[in-house]
């Protein structure tokens, strides 16, 4: 009887301590929950409601529910369709270039043992420079009349290669892609490099003994062993490509004639220049859907190959 009551007391003590711990746990988690609710859950819900409403906050007193009208209007709106097409085009080109180039650089760095720190720092450097600053520098370099690139070509007698880099719609697109890739390739390279370093050296030795060198080594040993890195880099690259904003905004302002206008920029203009919050919210949902579809596709392909 005495033993039982002792056990009972011990159990009570443990249970009250656990309850106290749980209470403190909840208290510590609460600020994060509040922040998440205020800055994520509430805005997402509000944006969802906005997407089905007509609300220009400069002119309308209140929101008016209009069902899916914003989504119908979107697919009749040339500017939105141009932005959508440009975004998909940029995503396709940038994704492929980023993956191929960063893997190539990572392989070069992986095999280079001497002074590799110098090259690693050099390749990573653009990441630490603010994107807007990079764009301003490139806009000066690529300017038609006083840009250093055209000036250089003129000075070395190659004036036939001078060009209106940023004001010609075709080259403007490629300028945006090059600047973006230049700014982002370092991060992807570092991710690939870490993936390469995780491959066991025994595997390489065994493969070489079996005659797997060059392309064979790349396709049968390296790529299958960095599949997880591919998925991570892929998702990151897709996100970066779809949320492209700073470069076209600063470098070309979406021009010439909307040739570099992207969805993010169109959403921003609709919301903060035209104050059409309902329509901007609807476009934001389309962009979110695109991000989710592409990310899931990337994960699915990664899993399938595994």
């Amino acid at each position, binding site marked *: 009887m005495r033993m039982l009551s002792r056990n009972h007391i011990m159990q009570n003590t443990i249970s009250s301590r656990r309850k106290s711990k749980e209470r403190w746990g909840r208290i510590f988690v609460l600020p994060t929950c509040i922040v998440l609710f205020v800055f994520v859950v509430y805005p997402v819900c509000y944006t969802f409601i906005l997407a089905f409403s007509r609300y220009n*906050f*400069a*002119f309308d007193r209140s929101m008016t529910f209009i069902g899916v009208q914003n989504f119908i209007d979107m697919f009749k709106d040339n*500017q939105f369709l141009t932005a959508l097409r440009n975004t998909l085009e940029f995503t396709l080109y940038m994704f492929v270039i980023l993956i191929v180039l960063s893997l190539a650089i990572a392989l070069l760095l992986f095999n280079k043992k001497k002074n590799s720190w110098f090259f690693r720092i050099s390749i990573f450097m653009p990441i630490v420079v603010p994107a807007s600053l990079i764009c301003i520098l490139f*806009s000066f370099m690529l*300017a*038609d*009349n*006083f840009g250093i690139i055209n000036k250089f070509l*003129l000075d070395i007698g190659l*004036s*036939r290669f*001078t060009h*209106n880099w*940023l*004001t*010609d*719609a075709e080259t*403007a697109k490629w300028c945006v892609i090059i600047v973006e890739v230049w700014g982002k390739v370092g991060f992807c390279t570092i991710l690939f490099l870490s993936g390469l370093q995780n491959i066991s050296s025994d595997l390489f030795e065994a493969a070489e003994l079996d005659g797997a060198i060059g392309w064979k080594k790349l396709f049968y040993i390296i790529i299958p062993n960095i599949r997880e890195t591919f998925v991570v880099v892929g998702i990151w690259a897709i996100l970066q490509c779809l949320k492209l904003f700073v470069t076209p905004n600063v*470098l*070309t*302002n979406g*021009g*010439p*004639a*909307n040739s570099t206008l992207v969805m993010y920029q169109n959403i921003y*203009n609709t*919301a*903060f*220049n*035209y*104050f059409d919050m309902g329509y901007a919210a609807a476009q934001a949902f389309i962009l979110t859907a695109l991000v989710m579809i592409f990310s899931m596709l990337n994960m699915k392909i990664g899993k399938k190959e595994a």
Partner: protein
Amino acid sequence: MKKVLVFVLILAITVTAAFASGSGESADSGKKTITIGAESWEINKLFLEQAAAEFEAAHPDVDVEIVTIADQTKLANYILDWGRGTTDVDLVFLDGGIFSVEYAAKDLIYDFEKDLDFFADFPKSNFTPGSLETGFINDGQYCLPAIYEVYGISINKAMFEEAGLLDENGNPLPIKTWDEFYDAAEKLTKKDSNGTATQVGASIQFGNNLHIILGSAIYAQFGDAYAEDGITYNVDNDYIRNMIGTWQKGIQNGYISQSTFVDNAGGRNGFKAGQIAMCFEAAGRWMEAIDTIGTENLALIPIPGDFGGTVCFGCQMVIPRASENADIVCQFIKEAIYGEYVQVNAFSEYGKMSVIQKYFDEALEGTPIWNGIADSMSKARPLKEYEESQKFLNGLNQIFQGGLVSTTTTPADMVDQILDLSASIRK
């Protein structure tokens, strides 16, 4: 121990909150504080810090605080704040009346005449003709111009001389039509053996102020920028179709730079760098080129057209209704912004023209180059601000940037597109 910890936390939060909550009253001895929001170029070129110091010296009971607005997108946030009846600024400088239309539409800003009786002791006759109208929005004086600018063509006289476009007195030959403008641009363009332009004849602002370019060109010809309905740009005529045609030809032949398509400063930077001979945008651009080109090589010519006028627009000031210091702010505007220091220096240093007639005359004496467009300036009128001005401007950008380089789009197509755009927006 826990109780002590909780007590200390509550005390810290209370003290922080108490210090964080600011009001118009300064902590020391009940001083009033007025807060001014302006972009960095406005702070520098309108000498706002000197104006604040001058005002504080004359009114020791007032502190003037200046906060920098990063860019015009900050203005969108003001709509939300002011709509809730709160504000962290008492006076805001806007880069043109175009930005105030939304505030006026929602009645978030004071009408200087009806609400604040601003002109009771500061008569309208103090202002240069046309300048006050730049702040007249939605049938009310919702904005007051701090300075104003007119459109004109800045030219590089050395290049004009080389191209034989100066008369015997060294003055630029008059350019009265857009065909003459095209011919001059052609003569002023230099190309190397590969056909690459090493010097471009002209630049036109096809970027952020394209509506003013178009409006001023129409006004310079007809003396009114609008068609019979009084609100649509008067573009549906052969004169404008021909003008757009010369611009298109100029762009496609490389006589007119297209750098403003993506960089608003592309034209003026090319002009400053001595690579563009004529720069059609805000007339004050010539002053930015003094250091690189030299005053003796600079001149201003009017926009081609029979009427010879130009369009003016102002850097505007608005006071939110949420401000509790509107009276002091009005005093600040009258004494400091409309004072001699700001008005004369903004004009003579940066080409931002004085809105006060006596200072305008004073500054004009010191900078005779302005006389090149004196007649235009005397006829300067502002354009009407549409409710959806931003949409209109973006639409114009697309039409011109796409059409001017296209070999299949005709000037008539572009005019039709402008009319369609105009019909589609809220005015």
